[in-house]
C-alpha cells in the first residue's frame, strides 16, 4: 500500500490530506478541509483508517507454520508493506498514529474504533522503521540512497525527486542539473512549503466561512471540492514518482538475505496484530528494561544488516577493505591436513595462505570470517608478512575442514570482521532493573493527547505581516 501525506504547516498531528492505494494503481484521498476541527478530521480519516485496518488484518490472517527446534510459531504468510516517499512521512505517520491510538471520549461518545486501531498500526510501523534492513515500511528516499551511488550529499538524498533525477536524469541532461531542477520544482511533503500553504490558507478560510461552523457531512462535503482538487494536484506527481521508483527497484534482483529479514518483519507484524487484536496497549515511553532490550535488538539488527549487505554486494565490501576491516586476495596455498594442539589433543585445523594486492597490517590471533561462510566458524590470523607489492597472510580455520568452509585454491577470497550470526545466546535481562536504572517515577501509562482538540484553531498569518517570520520556525 502506498501512502502520501500532506500536513497543515506547523501542525504535527493534522494531516490536511492523506492519499492511499496500491502502488502504481489509483489512489483514494481523504481531505478534512479544516483538519484542526476534530469532527471534520475524524470523518475524513475514517475511510483511510478502515482500509488500513482491514488490510492489516487481512494480511495477518493467512498464517504459515515455522518450526525452530522444538518450537513452532505461526507467522503471517505475508505482511502489509507500506511504501512512502521519505523518512519524514514515516515520522509524520508515527505522530498521527500516536494521536489516534489513544483517543478520549467527547460528550460520552467514543471515537470510531477503526481510527484507534489504525493509530496503533501506524505507531507500530513508525517504530518498526527503526529496525535496520526492515521492509514493512519502505521510505523510498532511504531505499534509493542505499541502492544507488549518486552525487547527492546525505542531506540532499532526503529529497526523493532529486534522487530520482540523479538516477534517471533524462537524455542529454547531466544528473546534477536534473536533480537541482527537480529539487526546485518538486513538492514531496509531508510538510508544506510557503507557496503551497498560501493557497491552502485562502481555501481553508473560504471553506470555514461557507460551512459557517457546520460539521454536517451533507453541508461540508460539497464545499470540500476546491481543497480536494488542491491536494489532489499535489499528490498526483508524488504518487507517480513513487510508482516510477518502485517499478525501477523491482527490476533489480533481491539479495539472498532479504527473505530472512522479511521473515523477522513478518514475525514482528504477526506479534503486533495479535497484540492489538487482544486489546493490548503499547507503552508510549519505554521502561529502562524495554529500552535496553530494544537498543540491543536494534544494534544486533544493524550489525547483521551491514554484514549481509557487505557480504552479498562486493561494492559494499570496499569501505571495509579500505578501513582494514577486511582483506582480499588470492588463495595461494591450502593445507587441509594441518594439525594443531587445542587444549590437550592435536586436531585438524586447515591453514590457508592469502596473497593480498595491497599491504595489510593485522595482529596475530585476529578473527576473520570468510565471506562465503560468514555464518560459520572464523579464521584466525597466524602471521602477516610483506610479499611483492602486497602482503602474505596465513590464516587458520578455528574448526575442522569441510568443503563449504574452504575457499578454492588460486581463487579470490575475502575475509572480514563481519559475521551474520552472533556467538551464543544473549542473556536475558533481570526483570527488576538495578536501582541505578530505576526512574524516579515509572513511565506513564498510554494516555490520550487530544485535550487540545477543543481549542480554537490559530489564524493563519502571512510572513509579510510579521517583523521576522523566521522567529517562528
Amino acid at each position, binding site marked *: 500500500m502506498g501512502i502520501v501525506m500532506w500536513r497543515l504547516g506547523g501542525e504535527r498531528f493534522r494531516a490536511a490530506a492523506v492519499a492511499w492505494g496500491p502502488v502504481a494503481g489509483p489512489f483514494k484521498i481523504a481531505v478534512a478541509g479544516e483538519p484542526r476541527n476534530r469532527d471534520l478530521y475524524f470523518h475524513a480519516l475514517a475511510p483511510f483508517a478502515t482500509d488500513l485496518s482491514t488490510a492489516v488484518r487481512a494480511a495477518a490472517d493467512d498464517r504459515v507454520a515455522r518450526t525452530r527446534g522444538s518450537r513452532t510459531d505461526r507467522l503471517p504468510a505475508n505482511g502489509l508493506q507500506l511504501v512512502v516517499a521519505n523518512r519524514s512521512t514515516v515520522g509524520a505517520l508515527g505522530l498521527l498514529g500516536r494521536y489516534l491510538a489513544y483517543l478520549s471520549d467527547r460528550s460520552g461518545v467514543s471515537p470510531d474504533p477503526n481510527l484507534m486501531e489504525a493509530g496503533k498500526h501506524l505507531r507500530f510501523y513508525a517504530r518498526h522503521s527503526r529496525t535496520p534492513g526492515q521492509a514493512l515500511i519502505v521510505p523510498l528516499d532511504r531505499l534509493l540512497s542505499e541502492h544507488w551511488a549518486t552525487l547527492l*550529499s546525505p542531506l540532499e538524498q532526503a529529497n526523493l525527486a532529486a534522487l530520482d533525477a540523479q538516477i534517471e536524469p533524462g537524455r542529454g541532461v547531466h544528473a546534477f542539473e536534473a536533480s537541482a531542477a527537480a529539487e526546485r520544482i518538486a513538492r514531496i511533503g509531508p510538510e508544506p512549503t510557503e507557496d503551497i500553504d498560501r493557497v491552502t490558507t485562502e481555501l481553508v478560510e473560504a471553506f470555514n466561512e461557507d460551512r459557517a461552523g457546520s460539521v454536517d457531512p451533507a453541508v461540508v462535503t460539497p464545499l470540500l471540492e476546491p481543497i480536494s482538487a488542491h491536494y489532489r494536484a499535489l499528490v498526483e506527481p508524488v504518487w507517480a514518482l513513487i510508482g516510477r521508483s518502485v517499478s525501477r527497484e523491482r527490476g533489480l534482483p533481491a539479495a539472498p538475505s532479504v527473505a530472512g529479514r522479511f521473515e523477522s518483519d513478518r514475525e514482528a507484524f504477526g506479534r503486533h496484530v495479535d497484540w492489538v487484536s487482544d486489546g493490548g496497549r503499547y507503552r508510549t515511553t519505554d521502561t529502562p528494561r524495554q529500552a535496553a532490550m530494544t537498543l540491543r535488538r536494534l544494534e544486533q539488527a544493524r550489525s547483521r544488516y551491514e554484514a549481509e549487505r557487505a557480504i552479498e554486494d*562486493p561494492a559494499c565490501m570496499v569501505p571495509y577493505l579500505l578501513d582494514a576491516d577486511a582483506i582480499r586476495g588470492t588463495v595461494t596455498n591450502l593445507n587441509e591436513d594441518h594439525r594443531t594442539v587445542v587444549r590437550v589433543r592435536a586436531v585438524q585445523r586447515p591453514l590457508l595462505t592469502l596473497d593480498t594486492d595491497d599491504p595489510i597490517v593485522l595482529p596475530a590471533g585476529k578473527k576473520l570470517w570468510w565471506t562465503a561462510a560468514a555464518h560459520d566458524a572464523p579464521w584466525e590470523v597466524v602471521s602477516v608478512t610483506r610479499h611483492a607489492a602486497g602482503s602474505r597472510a596465513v590464516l587458520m580455520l578455528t574448526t575442522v575442514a569441510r568443503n563449504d568452509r574452504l575457499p578454492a585454491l588460486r581463487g579470490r577470497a575475502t575475509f572480514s570482521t563481519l559475521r551474520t550470526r552472533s556467538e551464543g545466546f544473549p542473556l536475558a535481562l533481570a526483570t527488576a532493573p538495578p536501582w541505578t536504572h530505576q526512574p524516579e517515577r515509572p513511565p506513564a501509562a498510554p494516555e490520550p493527547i487530544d485535550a487540545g482538540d477543543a481549542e480554537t484553531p490559530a489564524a493563519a498569518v502571512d510572513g509579510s505581516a510579521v517583523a521576522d517570520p*523566521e522567529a517562528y*520556525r
Partner: protein
Amino acid sequence: MAKRSRSGRTTSKNEALAAVRGNAPKASPNVRRLAAFAKVHSCPTAVLAFAAGVDSNRVLTGTRLEMPFGQSPFAIGRGVAFENLLRQHGHAELRRVLTEGLEVDFALAPVENLRQGFQPNRTGLTMRASVTKNHMKEIVTGLPRPIVLDGAVLRAEVGGITAFFEADEMAIGVGGEILVGENKSWPVVDGRPTDADALGSALDQAATYALLGRRTLAEVGVDPDRVSGDVVIVTPRNTGLSPVLHRQNVDGRIRRIERLLAAVPAVSDIAEDLPAGLSFDPVADTSADDDARLDAFAEITDQVGNVYEPGSCLTSCGFAWACRECAFGRGDPAVAGGSVARALPGVATLRRVSELGRGAPPSVAEAPAAGPIARAGRLYDEAVPVPAPRRRRPA
C-alpha cells in the same frame, strides 16, 4: 551593524561594507542569525555578507537559485498564537509554566519587555544593550528574586567587528543565576520533541545567547558562569497550545559556538582586500536578468572565495544553491558532501579523483590522498566491472 568609531579606519571599513551591501536586502542582526551563521563561519562570502548586514536568504529572490526559506502561514500563525498565549493576561501562562517547571514562584515576578519604550533604530538598540547589561548585573548581584527579561540586546565580536544582537529568547533570573529561555511552537509528546532538528536549532540559539550573556557579565566584572549552562525550552504539550517547560544543559554547544565564532576570519582583512566596486547590489537587482545576477554572485565568490559544505550551507545560508552550482562548475568534490570532501584532501576536482582512481600520477598536494583513491579505484573496478565498450557488429 558595526560599532561606530571616530577613527578613520573603522569609518572607512564601515563605508566599504555599506558599499558591499548596496541596495541588497538588509538583515537585522539577531542571536538566531548569529547561531545560524556559526555553521557557515568558514566561508569568506558568508562572512562578508554577514559583516555587511546582507540578508543572504533574500539576495537571490526571484532567481532560479532562490532557496525556499519561507514559512507556511499556518506555522507562523501557530507561533504567533503560542507567543500571545504566553503573554496575555500579564504573562499569566508564562508565569505558571516557569513556576511549575523551575519550582520558584513567578506569580509576582516582574517581566521586563525591553522591546517596548525604545526607538526601533541603532540608538534604541544601543540603549537596550545598556539596559540589558544593567539588568543582568542586577539579577546576579542584587536580591535573588525571580525576573524575566524579554527582548534583550547583547554585544558580540564577530570577525573583529563588535555588533549588537537582538534576542528572541528570554533571560530568566532565578536565585541570582540567569537561565536562557526559548519559546517554540512545535509540540512535545510523551516528554519528547516532535521535531529533533528544530530542537537542535533552538538549543543552538539558546547556547549562543548564553555565550553572549556570559561575555556581557564578564565585561561588568561579574562571574560569567552565573549565566547557567542549562537552558529552558517552553513548548506546547500534545495537540493543543498548553505550554510545558523543559530544562537541558547546553555547555557543549556553548563551547562549540565559542570555538566557531573565534575562528571567523577577520572582516577587516577581507574588507581591505576587497576589489573596487565589489557589491551585492547587482546580485540583488530584481530588474536584471537571472543569468546576470547569478554571474555577479559567481564573481563575488571568485574574488572573495567561498566554502561550500552541503550539510551546513543548505540549512543555514540562502546562497547555498548558488554556491552548489559554482562548486559543481569547478568539479569541486564538496558537492557530494563533507565526508567525501574530507576523504580527498588536496584533490581539487572530481575529474582528478577519477583519474587518480585509474592510477594517474599524483601531484605533491594530492599525494596523501592518492594511494587510498587508487586502491579504492582498483577495488571498485574488481567489485563492479566496467562493461567493455560495445563493438559494432560488422555489416
